[in-house]
């Protein structure tokens, strides 16, 4: 009996160690994959783009939102974006300045032309909807990837393509997700599908992004994103058109005091 136990204990310990080793490896691998994704999608320096959001209700009715975006990469941080609202008419001319940080909650300022003053949205809580859409502030951009803990949980062939599946947990205590499953295409190192799970660990939203290569095929940027809220049946389809990498943006305009001057 004792002998058996004596033999068993090291075996168990060994197995546990191997298991830990593999977890460690998988986490390291996940980090590597995310690094690859970020490398794929950064390095654009700056650009202007027209963003169009179509909010489709469960009954098929849909509404348009148009925003002109100016994005400038930040070498030591992540990116800064100015969005100028074009439609609907009642909020036309409203502007939003967003600082996407690599290591802390993002900052936002909103300029309301009717009030003629910028207001800092001083919330740490980024779980709210962006412009009435199914996209939350915390879903915007790729800086979010830097503020999550990633685990490689499996590899999967899905709709004819091979994916790494990461289980990622946002660091913010205000997040509305328990975890997110990110499907990273093994061939392109881009996210092919993102599944958001709510606090009850039930599937909440499914995001299918589409990328295109720009700047002489050195960088991938999104051209379309279908975000479907499976719980309320609503979908937000976002398209980005007219990427302009030559548009000159004065970096000093990407600041709370001046962003309202962008048109």
């Amino acid at each position, binding site marked *: 009996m004792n002998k058996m136990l004596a033999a068993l204990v090291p075996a168990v310990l060994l197995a546990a160690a191997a298991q830990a080793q593999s977890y460690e490896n998988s986490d390291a691998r996940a980090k590597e994959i995310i690094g690859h994704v970020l490398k794929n999608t950064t390095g654009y320096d700056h650009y202007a783009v027209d963003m169009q959001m179509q909010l489709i209700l469960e009954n098929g009715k849909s509404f348009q939102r148009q925003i002109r975006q100016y994005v400038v990469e930040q070498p030591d941080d992540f990116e800064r974006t100015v969005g100028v609202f074009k439609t609907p008419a009642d909020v036309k001319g409203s502007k939003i300045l967003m600082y996407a940080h690599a290591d802390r909650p993002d900052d936002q300022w909103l300029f*309301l032309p*009717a009030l003629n003053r910028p207001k800092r949205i001083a919330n740490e809580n980024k779980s709210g909807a*962006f412009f009435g859409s199914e996209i939350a502030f915390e879903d915007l951009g790729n800086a979010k990837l830097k503020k999550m803990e990633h685990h490689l949980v499996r590899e999967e062939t899905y709709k004819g393509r091979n994916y790494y599946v990461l289980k990622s947990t946002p660091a913010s205590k205000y997040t509305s997700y328990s975890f997110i499953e990110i499907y990273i295409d093994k061939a392109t190192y881009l996210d092919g599908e993102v599944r958001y799970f709510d606090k*009850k660990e039930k599937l909440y939203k499914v995001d299918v992004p589409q990328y295109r290569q720009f700047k002489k095929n050195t960088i991938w940027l999104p051209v379309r994103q279908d975000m479907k809220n499976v719980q309320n049946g609503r979908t937000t389809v976002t398209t980005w058109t007219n990427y302009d990498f030559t548009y000159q943006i004065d970096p000093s305009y990407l600041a709370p005091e001046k962003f309202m001057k962008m048109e």
Partner: protein
Amino acid sequence: MPASSAAPRAFFDAYFEFLRKWRHLIVWGMLLLVVALTSGVRLLRINGDLNVYFDKDNPQMQGLEHIHREYEKTDNLLVVVAPRNGNVFTRQTLDFIEQLVAEAQRAPFVARVDALTSYQHVSSSGDDLTVRSLVENARTMSPAELARVRRIALADSMLLKRLVSPSGHVAGLFLTANFPKKDFISEGPTLIKFMQEALARHPHPDIDVHLTGTVMVDNAFAESGAQDMATLIPLMILVITALVYYFSRSWISTLTSLAIVLLSAAVSMGIIGYMGMEVTASLTSGPVMIMTIVIADGIHVFTSVILAMKRGLGKEEAVREAVRLNMVPLFLTTLTTVLGYLTMNLSDSPPFRDLGNLVSIGAAVGWVLSILWLPALLLVLPLREQMARTQAKVFNFDFVGVFVTRNWRRILVVTALTSALMLPFITRNKLNDMFLDFFSDSLPVKQATTFTVNNLTGIYSIEYSLGAGRAGGVTSQAYLRKTEEFAKWFRQQPHVIQVSSVVDVVKTLNKTMHGDSASYYRLPATDALGAQYLLAYEMSLPQGQNLTNQINIDKSSSRFRVVFQNMYTEDLRKIELAANQWLRDHAPATMYFDGTSTSVMFRYLSEKNIRFLIEGFSLGILTIVICLMLATRSFRLGLITLLPNVLPSLIAFSIWGLLVGKVGMAVAFVTSFTLGIVVDNTIHFITKYKRIRREQDLTPEEATVETFRVAGSSMFVSTLILVVGFLVLVLSPFQLNSHMGMLSALTLALSLFYDFLLTPSLVLLLERGLRQRATPAPRAAPAPDAKPAMATT
């Protein structure tokens, strides 16, 4: 018995031959059929949704569905937190609420949680706009912070009388639930169970917690229905066994009657299962009613057999005699009952239509079992000689006959006088269908809701979806000003507790954007300003706290909600009609909306039930007049004996007006379905009287006494069983059922009274005329030769 003697003998002989030849097949085959039909019970689903009471094409229902589509579902669960120290703004209580909010956010089906702690308070300092939960980490709050939160909360129109009481002694968590399947077994109870377990996980010795809201009310509907099934039916079985045994003194009689009753109830439930009906709390009174009504059929057949065997007939002959005697009368009484219940199909409310159809089916099944299965069974069963010596309980009502023949003129005068005196009290019945009153005070949900209404907020409401005519229109000056006026108008109306609209949100934002200056708590100066405030606000709200429950997605309409104290249906009617008129007179056409809510829908249903009451009653009267004329074979007699059948309901309603005074929709049906039951006694009395007159050459007075001798006991016993059966329903915690039972029992008891006194008086009036005074004293009644109570012939 009507028509029995004249019924074609050949038909009954052929029928009996069939019964005798195939008796084993009938007994076992029908049992198999019964089992097959009863298995439909498995298809029955319990539905506790209040909305089942309304037709889908009801305009208020459509209005409510519009609101559900545009904003959010209104299924909700309200958790009321009442600390014993009378102050919710303590570390302990706020911490408890915070923990409950966290639990509720994880609860199944919960789409949104609104609470004092998670309320998104907007504040601004300099150019910072902060939107955050009013309370975070209550455990670590200082007294100063607690005081600050108290000050903010008790001054916020969006929290007050909704999530916190004005004195701060009670707070609420408002859970909005989204039930995808609308399944009341798997959804509502799951949520309730989760919250009850959550409450158990967080000990709260000094805090009382009450659960209410539509989820609880719907659940109570389903639960009280199930409870009815579980308690009333066994009780009914007990009552039937006791009564039948008491009167028949025969176990075989008791068991076979019980079998017929149970099989009728089971088969009819099975049939409605196959028909796809849903079990509602109202439908659960059906089995008890079926049992009550059907019990008489079996007893009639059985006692006829015993009577015949007493006369010395063999078993087979006795059964033949019973079939011959009972087939037509049972058909007639069943027909009147079925017709009475079928009038419930005139109702606008599906559950009551279902109930009418269920009892009709049950009565018909009972009839088939009584004239087909029971005789075949009796042929198969070894009925022993001693059956013939069974001594059944008999009541002697000769004295009533003697009394009536001596006093029939006085009886007519007294009846006229008491009727004239009583009938005006009908008008004291105030129409009331406020759904909280559907439950008796013994139910926990009633107590919780009463506490909530007394301390925090109301459960009755009216809702509007006010259209602005164009996308983005809800922030226009004109729209907001009109909405504000409407809110102001509502606040001046009686019974109003709280009015909430988009105006509160916009005003609060205007104030916040101007450095929290109280003077800016007004509508913004331009259309664009309002729109942009909302943009800023929405961009700041966390997930699950957005404005979609108040403003639709393209901002072309907003929700307007008024909460009331407890009140009568009539008060609601006044306010609702006045509000709709106000909108028509003062607001642009795009803003017009017929106010709606579950309470409003019940009010319309209530009104339609009054119409039903008149229609159903008229149709019922027409039906029984025809039946009476057929049964009595006399136009005059049929017409005049209508009186003792109509008066019981009317007088019962008068007594109800005097003693209770509140009439809900359920009691509206009592008049129509009791008609079909009440008429049976009259049919029994008149047909027997006529036969006695014809066959025995007696004067009207002598015939009256003789009729009481042969029929009085069975009329009394069958009415007694009916009264007791309906009284069983009084024990239901569901007031619709208990009131229905109470009023039915009252009507039936009165009907016996009228059939004993008024019916014979009217017959004598017809026979003798009003003027003729010469009334020969009736001969002494022949000694009763102990006919069993149930004998109908």
